[in-house]
């Protein structure tokens, strides 16, 4: 059986008030609903007795933390070396234009969020786009529309 998801306050209580708890705490806080809200930053800061700026400074350093709610589907465009040279950047730009969002943001209807990743580990298939847990290989701009249509 899957363990019950902890609420944010329970997550806070499960960590001691030390600065070293910050990153694991941020990770758990993000797991709860997919992003770190200003309220969570405030809660973590109060719990660890550091300022919100310090929490946000650390959290925004790492690309794994996001500060806007994720969409129903998460698009990751690979910009690793192989994908980059075979047109990853163009794919990302196309997504940005079509969805009218920048990387790290979510469409207003909550359908997609867009991210860039450094490498997905399947460089032979470059350029690669990942939507949720599905990998699309050797993608080009023409294919993108069909791919997006698969997700609601």
């Amino acid at each position, binding site marked *: 059986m899957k363990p019950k998801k902890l609420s944010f306050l329970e997550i806070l209580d499960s960590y001691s008030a030390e600065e070293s708890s910050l990153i694991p705490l941020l990770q758990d806080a993000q797991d709860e609903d997919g992003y770190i809200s200003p309220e969570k*930053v405030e809660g973590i800061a109060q719990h660890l007795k550091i*300022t919100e700026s310090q929490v946000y400074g650390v959290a925004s350093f790492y690309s794994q933390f996001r500060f806007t709610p994720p969409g129903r589907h998460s698009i990751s465009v690979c910009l690793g070396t192989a994908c980059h040279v075979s047109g990853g950047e163009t794919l990302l730009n196309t997504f940005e234009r079509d969805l009218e969002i920048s990387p790290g943001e979510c469409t207003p209807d909550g359908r997609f969020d867009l991210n860039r990743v450094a490498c997905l580990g399947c460089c032979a298939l470059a350029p690669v786009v990942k939507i949720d847990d599905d990998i699309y290989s050797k993608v080009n701009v023409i294919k993108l529309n069909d791919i997006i249509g698969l997700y609601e």
Partner: protein
Amino acid sequence: MKISIDNKSVEVSRQMTVLEAADQNGIYIPRLCAHPELIPYGGCRLCIVEIEGIKGYPTACTAMVEDGMIIRTNTNMLQQMRRDLLQLILSEHPAACLLCDNIEGCSMFQETIRKVGVTTGCRWCPKDKDCELQRIVESFDVHELSLPGLYRDLPVEKYDPFFDRDYNLCIYCGRCVRICNEYRKSSVIAFRQRGKFTTIGPSFDENHIDAGCEFCGACVSVCPTGAMSEKSRKWWGLPDTYTKSVCPLCSINCDIQVLSLRDKIVGTLPPGKPHEAAGELCVKGRFCLSEMVNRTKRILEPSYLFPEGEGIIGWKEAFKRGAELIKDAGKGKTALYISPYLSMEEYSAIAYFARSVLKSSFVTSSCLDYNNTEYLRLSLRSIPLDKVRKSTSIISLFLNGNYNYAPLTMAVKNAASSGIPYYQIGWIRDSTSRFATNSIVPEPGDQVRILDDLIESIKGKSTHDPVIHQLAEHLKNEENALIVIGPSLISLSGMQQVLDRINVIIDLTRSKIYAPNPYGNIKGMLSANEMKPVEIITEKVEKGDIALVYLIGDMPFSERSTDYKLIYQSAFPAPENLRPDLVLPSAVWGEFQGTWPGMKGSTARARKAAKPHDYAKLNIDIINSMSAYAGKKGVLESMSKKNRKITGKFIPHLPVRESALENEEKLNGMEKLPFILISERSPHTYMNLQLDRAVEGLNELISPCYLLINHSDARKLGISGGEYVTIADSEYELTRPVKIRKNIPAGVIYITDNKSVIGFKSNPCYVNLSREHV
């Protein structure tokens, strides 16, 4: 330890960095991120050196000296690398000020890039000629850029009071972030994101006020570029004089230096090198003093109220009429109100003036009311400020140190962050709250009960509250337990009972006390003058027993009730309906030299930094001439040379009251409502000027006319900033606009204007909060 720097053999006594060793021996190594108050960072890399036996080029600020080390700081290779590093820095830093073709002729001809015949030169960096980066680039003779430039195009941040931030000029040396974090212990700003997207600021898009900034200006002082600049003197250029002085605004009397340009005060800084000293000033000492002195609404000329109306007169005429008014009033018919913000010299002159010229013993000050006097009595038991750091535990009562008493809050923060237990009791979250081991937010009316519990617990009775028990243990067992008391206590209900309890605690234990006072020189005022309680004198005035009221920088009433003559001597205008008979413009702090005794134990001298404003004269000179016109020897002649130098101990004589005014207030049995309203008498004054109304930036911070509420309360009730809300208890209600502030705890409403909330039963009290429906 013996080391060699640039072939110079050098003796080093202790563990230190190579940079410190070089500095000590007069060898200059360029640096942009190193700062004497800060932990070495190694960010700018300009201080690279060669050390024999060590691979590569270590940075001097992070390398520790070792015995026998051979260091070279100035080889061709190093200089070339530094030049390359500067190229990298300049590729992201707009550098027209350094690389303009016309740089040499510019200062002479002030050429313009516009197609019109104006000769302005281009002034777009506020730190021009005062910039560390500029100085270093010039010393390296860099005249062109070898790398393509990148302009970050970040918006200039102007929405916070007192300083602007243009991070396009930032070189990411991290000094501001580090000084805020390591030295001031505020951690308001941090590096956000990484790589070329890095920016500096508070979390998300918060402003500095909500992020808990005290506006101490340390970040502005240490910034090596023009990224941070003071709003008030941004385009003034370099000051020409730096004068040692003392801040007159609260009883701590911090040392400061006054910057002036062409005999005009343009700013203030903590003592030390202008770019290095981060200092311990609060926002008032750092930013408000110069705005106060340069306030446009100052009295410029003496004036007299003729039967047909007010008219400007000359000084001679003014003295003549003043002397007449004094003579007409006669002996014992004059009341003298003086401000608690003057210097010792002025007070001794005033004492002579009252005794020999006015021939009156009715000397008082509007700050000498019952609560203030009793608070001062406690305040005089304070230990010296430097002992605060040596405390073994600290309890603060009703301390609101956000924009006040910075040396005190810094000492508390430093002590608490080094592991000393710190407890905070009160309703306001200030910059020390984050360091508190435990905080108690009492229910309204419980301010006395908590102390009673504490006393019982000290006496050995068991208490059910574990925090009170801990507090009692600290106070009972420790030699150096410290109780810090904030002057917001003066405005609380049951203030006398709280004071009584505190005195009992001090007598029961060996604990020490520190209670700062919002009145800059109340101690000096009371040591030079025998003064009466203000309500006694004001009663006499209202009964008509007084023929002449003489105000020196003080403002005890806002209108005239009975028919007496009024001489008004101050720098700032009187309220409109007061209509004084004679107005005498006086100089303010910074325009004369004087002595301040302060709470530090030693006397401090403030030197003259600028000449008095317009036709204003020094208080001493006015009194001196007035005495002469009244047929007495001038004050200055009456003081022998020895007397004029003010030294020694200052022993204040507190005004004596025949009986205590207050009875035990009943504080319990209040009906519980969802919010706690707490008000405070504004501690931000100078003479009769309300600083939080006069200085725009401070007004923004304090917002005296607003109800301040917590952001989560505002969200719950759907209130946005600026909206009008009504607070009410069973008997009284008040409608005011709100401001949303993070430093107000949830469930608390705060207002710095205790006159408007006088109708409420007590302070603090329970209230309901509702949106005003239009």
